[in-house]
């Protein structure tokens, strides 16, 4: 019998031990708690790096693997980075671009202007903007003076983190500008709204305009001085550039023009930067050298910042361009320009105006068919090569990823903002300077003065066309056409606008995109934009 009691005793002991030794509180091996991230200035900087990386990358793993944007919104992670999404909305909807592969999610309907509220490219952009805003809000919350003091961070470390904080506010303001421009009336959250605590209220375009303006002005002095920050990080000039761009479009956003302010902020920037001497060297693998012209960039690197969107998309995307020209493994047969856009160049050969970087071999100029890869010229503007024609510094042996940085703001745009604001009656500038700036752009484009124009040629319509020639494929076209009221109207028609080959006017509701149905159903405070 004693043996039996022993057996029972052992059984009971084992049970009691097992129930005590392991608890139900488990934590992942490699992840960190928020408390452990935000303890050192390095931790803060790495959190900041993720906010910036939300521009460039699709997720936490090079290529694909751990997407930021859930697959319910964009099934293919390669399509879910900021630049590719925003680029598609700004360019595929216009005369500048169409994409051959109509079966790709969300493509059909963009160029034809018949999109709906459940288009994945539209909702992808929306959620990508909010992703960066949410990261920024978290960072701003974690980096209050109170939190820094509480975590024992003082002195130069604390000063650096305050700069990071101002940059986080800039990035948030930039994304709110994107949302204001695309969606008009998005929901609104700031750092005071903790994660999962509030259902955001909807804001209006006008309110949002005021908010972004006040944020940018508030951080104007907190940001690091122009050109004094690390490459890739925002400085005061970035905030000024965003203000200038926003003021130029103020009439669209609020009904009230702010052209004087657009000139004011252009003026702050102009003297600090100069045009790079060769247009065709703007979008190359070593374009990080163009710091004289680039104000703020999204940085890509074939070794360290790998993804299928970004400038990888802009380099592989254009149809028919051989890998030997683009410096990649080849093209994806996708992007082509309408003939209407090509016609903005009196000489599309590129021999006179060097900005006409069209690839024409095997391509028909006329876009007879919207979804045929050989209809429409494509472009070689983005090339993964250095100025000397050599391979990229961190070249990807497989030829997939590229090293080209993308300028969100560059001096040429500031010149064009200045000129347009002057022509639209803004104060603080003059027509002579405006003409000078336009001719600076044209002289660079032509390599000589043969392309220069005179004062009488400098009209608003000329500036729109000049913006097209100078800034195409840089995510400006849709906003520009709306400002000129040529986006939905019959004032300017291009191939397949409205779904017909000659183009036709469409409902003016398409000037802003619909709030994604997904968010309407999860946020009861939201109302759909008119007409959708």
């Amino acid at each position, binding site marked *: *019998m004693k043996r*039996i009691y022993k057996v029972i005793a052992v*059984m009971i002991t*084992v*049970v009691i031990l*097992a*129930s005590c030794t392991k608890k*139900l509180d*488990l934590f*992942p*091996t*490699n*992840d*960190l708690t928020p408390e452990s991230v935000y303890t050192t200035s390095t931790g803060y900087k*790495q*959190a900041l*790096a993720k906010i*910036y*990386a939300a521009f460039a990358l699709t997720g*936490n793993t*090079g290529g694909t*693997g751990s997407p930021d944007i*859930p697959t319910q*919104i964009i*099934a*293919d992670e390669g399509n879910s980075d900021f630049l590719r999404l925003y680029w598609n909305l700004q360019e595929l909807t216009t005369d500048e671009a169409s994409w*051959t592969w*109509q*079966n*790709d*999610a969300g*493509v059909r309907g963009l160029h034809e202007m018949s999109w*709906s*509220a459940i*288009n994945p*490219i539209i909702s992808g952009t929306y*959620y990508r903007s909010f992703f960066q805003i*949410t*990261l920024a809000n978290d960072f701003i919350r974690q980096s209050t003076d109170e939190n820094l003091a509480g975590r024992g961070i003082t002195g130069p470390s604390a000063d650096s983190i305050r700069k990071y904080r101002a940059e986080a506010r800039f990035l948030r303001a930039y994304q709110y500008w994107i949302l204001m421009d695309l969606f008009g009336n998005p*929901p609104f959250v700031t750092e005071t709204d903790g*994660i999962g605590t509030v259902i*955001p209220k909807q804001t209006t375009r006008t309110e949002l305009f005021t908010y972004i303006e006040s944020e940018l002005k508030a951080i104007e002095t907190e940001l690091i001085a122009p050109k004094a920050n*690390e490459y*890739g*990080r925002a400085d005061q000039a970035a905030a000024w550039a965003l203000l200038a761009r926003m003021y130029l479009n103020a009439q669209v956003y609020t009904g009230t023009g702010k052209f004087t302010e657009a000139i004011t902020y252009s003026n702050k920037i102009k003297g600090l930067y100069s045009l790079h001497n060769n247009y065709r060297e703007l979008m190359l693998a070593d374009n990080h050298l163009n710091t004289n012209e680039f104000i703020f960039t999204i940085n890509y*690197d074939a070794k360290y*910042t790998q993804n299928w969107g970004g400038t990888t998309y802009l380099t592989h995307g254009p149809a028919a361009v051989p*890998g*030997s020209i683009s410096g990649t*493994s080849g093209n994806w*047969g996708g992007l082509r320009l309408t003939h209407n856009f090509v016609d903005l160049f009196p000489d599309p050969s590129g021999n006179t105006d060097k900005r006409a970087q069209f690839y024409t071999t*095997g391509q028909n100029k006329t876009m007879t068919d919207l*979804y*045929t890869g050989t209809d429409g010229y494509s472009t070689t503007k983005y090339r993964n090569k250095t100025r000397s024609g050599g391979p990229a510094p961190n070249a990807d*042996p*497989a*030829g997939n990823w590229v090293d080209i940085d993308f300028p969100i703001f560059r001096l040429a745009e500031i010149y064009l903002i200045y000129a347009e604001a002057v022509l639209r009656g803004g104060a603080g500038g003059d027509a002579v300077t405006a003409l000078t700036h336009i001719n600076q752009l044209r002289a660079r484009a032509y390599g000589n003065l043969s392309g220069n124009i005179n004062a009488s040629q400098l009209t608003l319509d000329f500036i729109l066309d000049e913006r097209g020639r100078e800034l195409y494929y840089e995510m400006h076209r849709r906003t520009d056409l709306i400002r000129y009221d040529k986006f939905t109207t019959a004032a300017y028609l291009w191939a397949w606008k409205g779904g017909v080959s000659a183009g036709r006017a469409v409902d003016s509701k398409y000037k802003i995109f619909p709030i994604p149905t997904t*968010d309407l*159903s*999860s946020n009861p405070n939201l109302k759909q934009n008119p007409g959708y």
Partner: protein
Amino acid sequence: MFTCTSTSAENLTGYSSFQKKIAKMKIKNRLRHVAACLFSLFFFTTVLFAQQSLKGTLRSASGEPLVGATVTVKGSGRSVVTSPTGEFSIDVPAGSTLVISYVGYQTREISVTSEPQITITLQSAGADLNEVVVVGYGTARKKDLTGSVVNITSKDFQKGVITTPEQLIAGKIAGVSVISNGGQPGAGSTIRIRGGSSLRASNSPLFVIDGVPLENDNISGAGNPLGLINPNDIESFTILKDASAAAIYGTRASNGVIIITTRKGRGGGLRINFSSLNSASILVKKVDVLSSDQFRTIVNDKGSAAQKTMIGGANTDWQDEIYQTAFGTDNNISLSGGLAKLPYRLSIGYQNLEGILKTDKMQKASLGISVNPTFLDNHLKVDINLKGSMQKNRFGNQAAIGGAVSFDPTQPIYVKSNRFGGYFEWLNATSPTGLESLAGRNPLGLLNQRYDEGTPQRSIGNVQIDYKFHFLPELRANLNIGYDVSKGKGTVFVSDSAAADYSRAGRNTEYKQSKRNTLLEFYLNYVKDIKSIKSRVDVTAGYSYNNYLTTVFNYADFNAKRVKLPNTDPAFPFNKPENTLISFFGRANYTLNDRYLLTATLRRDGSSRFASENRWGLFPSIALAWKIKDEQFLSNNNIISDLKLRIGYGVTGQQDGIGNYDYLSRYALSSANATYQFGGTYYQGYRPSGFNPNIKWEQTATSNIALDYGFLDNRINGSIDFYLKKTTDLLNEIPQPAGTNFSAFIIANVGDMENKGVEFSINTEPIRRNDFTWNVDFNITYNKNTIKNLTVIPGDKNYVGFQTGTIAGGIGGQFVYINAVDGPKSTFNLYKQVYDSVGRPLEGVFVDKNEDGIINQNDLFKTKTADPKVFLGFSTGMTYKKWNASFVLRASIDNYVYNNTFSQGGTLSQIRGNSVLYNASTNYLETGFNGNSQQLLSDYYIQNASFLKMDNLNIGYNVGRVFNKATLQLSATIQNVFVITKYKGLDPEISSGIDNNFYPRPRIFALGLNLGL
């Protein structure tokens, strides 16, 4: 338990009149009569008769020889075991009694006459209501079951080449759908019990093998984690379908529980059994694509000048090239018996199977050891089970399947060039690699130049100690300590000359993962018959601890020469995801008057996957049963042999299929190739993960009403079950209001879903004769799934539902399903095709459903669903003298498949491609689509995939004695015999409902032998 009665007295030759007399005695007075008959037998045995040699053959009702059954001379302790032909020989005194027992069958007693040769038939335990069934944490007498529990033993298993346990029961059980995931050897299956209760969390049932609950997750390098269990070692399956049966498994029971019991040693002399099954698998059907001549005609007719020059001079049927006739062998040897008082069973299995896709190969070796000693006068029972297996797999590159369908048939396989291994590839001189960048690669090159090899190992074992208290024999204590460890590792090698990975100079990568799952369970069980109040009480209370720990090793990426690709070092060398489940459980069975039964269970589960305030869940169940047959008014009825009404209700939980740490705010470091550049430095970022501190259990409440019936001595028996499963707090990925969480979607408890259905089964034995038996079993299941709510605010009209079901064709993801309120899950959501007057679909013309003049996503409409409404199983077996034959049919009604092969490959733009030519589906000849409008999301591609399938056809012959002592049986089996369907693609049985690059299920011809000693 035994009786002196026999249900097949007339089968027994030399049956004594004395036996006949007692056979007629009433069961009511059973015990007294048994005692009487025993006494008589003893008397005759010991006094009246002399020793004689008796030879016998033991068969099942279906005529199969029963191997390894124990034949004991009552009272003498002398016993023998039947040979592989079911024969036995024993010296007995005439007039003595033989007790014949075999697991899964009713124990019989036979009195010995002077007849020297007898044939004995054992009735399957299906008809034996005293049979004991393994249920969660203990056993139950079959007659006492109150829940929906189905037990299926080896005699009813599917036959042929079976690589994974669940395939043994496909089509055999009402309410249980088992669909293999393809034709690859060892492929896993999609198993659904009563439709599946979840949308985004797991819909797979819990598997418990010899008391060890298994984790559902995959093992690296193994096609299927269950494939590491040797099907030949399995004795029986018990399926707990409703909540009253399964709720004892609490949070893991919502999708049902499948309990596997493996074969055990039974003591006695050494028995050796050897079986060998050798098979040849052939491709049954190819995807219909254009012939090379059709292809040439079309390109010459409609291609550009450049495309016409691409046409080659060869005629290659790429599908013929990538498939092969595959050979396989499956060998098992088992040794069982008793060493001293230690019953043991040792089994060794070896499978070596080729896939019909060239280069596909699976080798598996498995070992099973089971010892079951008893001590202390049977008070202490110890069960030790150890199972181990290892595989050596080479996975054929399944990209070749789609590749072969679309590769240009006018191109040759090989060219006279050393580049790219001599395979024909599409070239482009301007590309840095010399290859056309987006062109498909040579399908044969994809296969032969890739070595994707995995060597997973798995061992499952447990020690179960059961102690019956000496001072209180009604009380038992049971301790079960178990483990499930596995290691998955493998390598992928692609030569540097292979076009597929040419730009990265080949591939030589590795992966490794290990799992260590531990289990500790303890329970007390008290059983007491309280005669004074005609009651029986059976109470269990216990504790369970489960820990699931996985270690995943991370590696850098290498080219074929093992040169590391730049910057591919992982951020962390390994990761160790882990979760723990702690549970307390109890069950009470109360039986009144042997007619009225009550079962109540309660389980409290704590999971590490939830925050402390949501961590614990309580899962109760209650069930009542009424044995109507035992009521006075039916007890004399000779037609009705069994009638029982069961009513049950219970709540189960579900936490599988979600992350381990979803409730925690946590920050993940980005990998080295996903950094951001500030100045000259690249920073790895910290990304906060989306989280939901409020996440908790998903709950399913199941009601079940059922009737078990038996007629004519149970020669006709079965059940009908009606059930209603309501899942609340669905674990579902739901969108977060933008800006309120780090991920736009998180897993949260939002939504309700309902499954209701009927299951009916009938098992019959139309012929039950000595040399001729025939049984016919049939089951049918109807299940209706409805999503009731998906939003935080119920009935939100804004919410259209969420899309799932990614198809091939178009990047960025096109979804064909929508999960929306008031419809079933996986409802196709597509454009309505418009047809011309002769019924041809008009390309790009769809019905403007909302009549707004624009065809866009708002015009998608909900149509058919992928899940069948009704599925059926039909099995029959026949024996005639030494021959036996059986087949299994399965059918599925009202299931639809999206034919992605048609939609992606059935257009002119498919042929003209981007830069090179591709072959198209013959569907192009029917539609003439040029592919320039969005056709992918047309409901034209939804096809009715109802089917009738013969799973296997088996013929066996019992040779009998060979080489003196050994016995031999032979069998021939055909698997995947035929399919009758209207579906136009390769195979209608596709659990995902999207037919794309499906690995064809082969037809398998197998010859087997079974040799016993």
